[in-house]
């Protein structure tokens, strides 16, 4: 999957969790939990959504890698 496609998947999942969040406007190195107002439950739901949509396992030890937009997309690109 291309980075653009992966980004689209993330945006779709986020729309179900935090519809008001603007993922596209995020800077690559910003902490998306702060910038998009995601609490720990929201973040967990995002991870679950990614697992369901992309069929990849994301061990919890890897969560910190997903805290920024760049980190998240790099991680998915390497795994998906």
């Amino acid at each position, binding site marked *: 999957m291309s980075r653009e496609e992966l980004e689209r998947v993330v945006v779709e999942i986020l729309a179900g969790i935090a519809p008001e969040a603007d993922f596209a406007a995020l800077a690559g190195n910003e902490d998306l939990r702060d910038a998009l*107002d995601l*609490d*720990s*439950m*929201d973040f*967990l739901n995002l991870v679950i959504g990614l697992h369901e949509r992309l069929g990849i396992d994301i061990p919890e030890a890897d969560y910190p890698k997903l805290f920024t937009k760049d980190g998240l997309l790099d991680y998915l690109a390497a795994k998906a």
Partner: protein
Amino acid sequence: MTSLRERTVLESWPRIRKRPEELPVRPHLLDYEATRAAFSWEAARAGLTGLPGGGLNIAFEAVHRHAHGARASKTALRWIGKDGSRRELSYAELSAEALRFASALRAHAVTEGERVFLLLGRVPELYVAMLGSLSAKCVVSPLFSAFGPEPIATRIRMGEGAVLVTTPELYRRRVEAIRAQLPSLRLVILVERGETRERPPGTIGWSEFSARGEGAFAVPPTDPEDLALLHFTSGTTGRPKGAMHVHAAVLTHYVTGLYALDLHEEDIFWCTADPGWVTGTSYGVIAPLVHGVTNLVVEAEFDAQLWYRILQDEKVTVWYTAPTAIRMMMKLGAEAAKGYDFSRLRFSASVGEPLNPEGVMFGLEAFGRPFHDNWWQTETGGIMIANFAATDVKPGSMGRPLPGIEAAIVRREADGTVRVVDEPMVEGELALKKGWPSMFRGYLGEEERYRKCFAGDWYLTGDLAKKDEEGYFWFVGRADDVIKSAGHLIGPFEVESALMEHPAVAEAAVIGKPDPIAGEVVKAFVVLRPGFRASEELRRDVLGHARKRLGPVVAPKEIDFRDGLPRTRSGKIMRRLLKARELGLPEGDLSTLESDERPTGAAP
């Protein structure tokens, strides 16, 4: 009588026996009964200093009294920023900064008794502003930085906030749009990092504000009954409640720091609570400083690996955290904690919602120490019931009352009085004999609501519990519809009101849905206005609306559409029935049910 189910629970989780003589540091509370019997609040007062001119001020007990003696150069605050940067403030430095802040408040014509609201994450300025405001005898009201504009506006309006300390980011996202609705707010101080961009109108930078303060400031005479803290909490109905606490509360902070957290001079203490919550104030700021220990402050949010590293590297000895975090660590498994050195960790405690026995045992497995659950609430100001370092732990129990605290299970009688239930393991409402120093002195502007919390000498907590034959208390549930999510109390009314501001929403009802991590999550049932049709798109629109208004912590995580909501004949929504149906539980007494819900075709 103990029911079969309870027996199973009690027996399946073995009691954790303590051998106090083997503990590396001798606990302050060794003999529970003897300590309780000998305790008096008057005698405990000897642990405090008191203002030189008489009176009692929280900030003086927390920092100023340590600023000139043996603790002057001792680290009071050890702060670790999100980017790993560090800052240390000694007791002398923290005291000086707090006094400068107090003096700057006066220079900006902020007078005694005025309210200072804090909307900040865990940054050093939070501690300076809180202690500085208390030094100036202003009343401090901490807010969750995860609150959306609506909860912030409601609270600042209710508290008639004169001053707000926040960050440029939070101001822009949460406050700027509602500023016009807050006429009482005269001074908005922004804690800036890095280079200053253009500052929004009507605000002042932290350094510019502080520059008008002087190093010297004398804490004015403070009556122990003077108002110090305003903590907002939620009830089932109506506006949030502003629980008022006075400077005398510091005696409870001292005593609970001693007995419930077992703080000793050499401790490195870490409280992970959000500063917007009462725990973040009583135990994130006041209690550790009153005891003169080093208070570790970690700005970052929960991240298991980071937390393990911090426990190890900072040599944390006493740790106070919450069930949601513990359950997240459990998901990761005890394996993930292997390889770290937790040998310095002496005592760990948990608060916020009942800690399940698995959580208590996880502490033993992962850190070699069980988590000690304790119980208290915004209104009590400090820990009331606890598992202690030297006494046996029964996993799943909140423990026993602190010295100086009398707790009982009571039943409300028809005539408004209460009857104490003496039989063990019989459910009733948890009540506390009134009169401890940190008991709230009122709900701001709501005398009647305050009065209703008491029956005779008893403060009624609204929590249902049981007491076993050894005097250990066991949490059962809430007596009202308040939702407890990840340690936050959420009032359904506040959420429902925000939902009903959406143009498509006619009615809304909100319940707490059990969740394995957060305890409960907020779930909303929504009835649409004529002309609107349930759809995924509309669901997202309502969800986004609620999140923008309320912030992620308070907004619902789930929304279901309904054609109607169950109501009593008097028109009240029966949240309990919605909840019972959601959980597949018996629906109970439906004799008062007037109109019932009908799920819409589209909803599950």
